[in-house]
C-alpha cells in the first residue's frame, strides 16, 4: 500500500537492477539515493527499472541525474527504464536526453 517502494537485486556480477514502484517525488527521492549510491562503483552496471514508476518530479529527477554523474565519474554505467507517460513528460520537459541513458526495457538496459 506504500506509495513508493524501491528494491535492489544483482543480475550477474556487478550488474544491479534497482526497481522503483509508485511515485518518485520529493518524499521518496532521498530513499532512492541511499539505495543507488552504494551500487555505483567502478565497472558496475546499474539499471533503474522504473517500469512501474508512475510519477517523477524535479526532486526525483535530481537523484537520477546525480546517479548518472556519479556513474560517469566512477567509470560505471547508469541506465534508466521509465516508460510511464508522466515520467516521460518530465524527462522531455527537463531535456535530459543527453544526460540520462534511457532504454526501452530492463533486458536491453542490462545488455551492452
Amino acid at each position, binding site marked *: 500500500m506504500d506509495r513508493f517502494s524501491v528494491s535492489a537485486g544483482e543480475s550477474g556480477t556487478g550488474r544491479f537492477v534497482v526497481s522503483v514502484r509508485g511515485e518518485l*517525488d520529493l518524499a521518496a527521492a532521498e530513499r532512492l539515493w541511499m539505495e543507488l549510491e552504494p551500487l555505483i562503483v567502478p565497472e558496475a552496471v546499474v539499471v533503474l527499472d522504473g517500469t512501474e514508476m508512475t510519477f517523477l518530479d524535479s526532486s526525483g529527477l535530481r537523484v537520477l541525474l546525480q546517479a548518472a554523474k556519479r556513474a560517469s565519474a566512477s567509470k560505471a554505467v547508469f541506465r534508466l527504464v521509465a516508460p510511464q507517460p*508522466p515520467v516521460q513528460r518530465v524527462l522531455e520537459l527537463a531535456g535530459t536526453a543527453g544526460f540520462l541513458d534511457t532504454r526501452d526495457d530492463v533486458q536491453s538496459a542490462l545488455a551492452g
Partner: protein
Amino acid sequence: MYQEIQPESADPERAKPDGEPVAPERGPNGPALSTVALTIPADRDQVVLVRSVAAHIGVRLGLTVEELTDLRLAVDEACGVFLLSPDFGGLGEALDCRFEELPGDDGAAGTLVVTVSAPVGPTLGPDEDDIGWIMLGALVDELTWRTENGLGTVRLVKLLAGREV
C-alpha cells in the same frame, strides 16, 4: 519554458499577513465559480494530497490526461518551492493551497488559478535556474512568485480553453 516573477507590489489584495481567509479572486465576469482550499503540514509526505486534489479538480473541469499529468506535476513543484528550500521553517509550518475556478470574459476561456502559500523569511524564493522552477514555468500558462508581509505565494494559472466551466 519561461518564467515570470512579478514585483511584490502586484495584486496586494491577495496575500494577507495573518493567515485569515483570502477573499475569493474575481475574474472579469465575477467571483470564483468554485474555490477549494487545502492546508497540509509542511511535510513532504503530504504533498500527495495536493496532487490528488488537483487531479480530482482537473477531472471535474474536463482536463485531458496530458493536462492532468501536467497539473499534478505543477502543484507538486509549487509545494517543492517551499519544502525543498533549506531556508523554510520546516515541520511546524503549513502549506495553504487554493484552487479557484474563474470565469472568462463572455465566451472566452475560464481559468484555474492555483496558489500555494506559506510563511517565509526574506531569503526564501524560487531559484530561477532550478530545474523544478523552470519545468513549472513550462507546465502552466502563467507563473508568479510573490512575498508579502512574510507570506510567500506561488501562483499558477491554467487556461481552460474550449471547455465549459
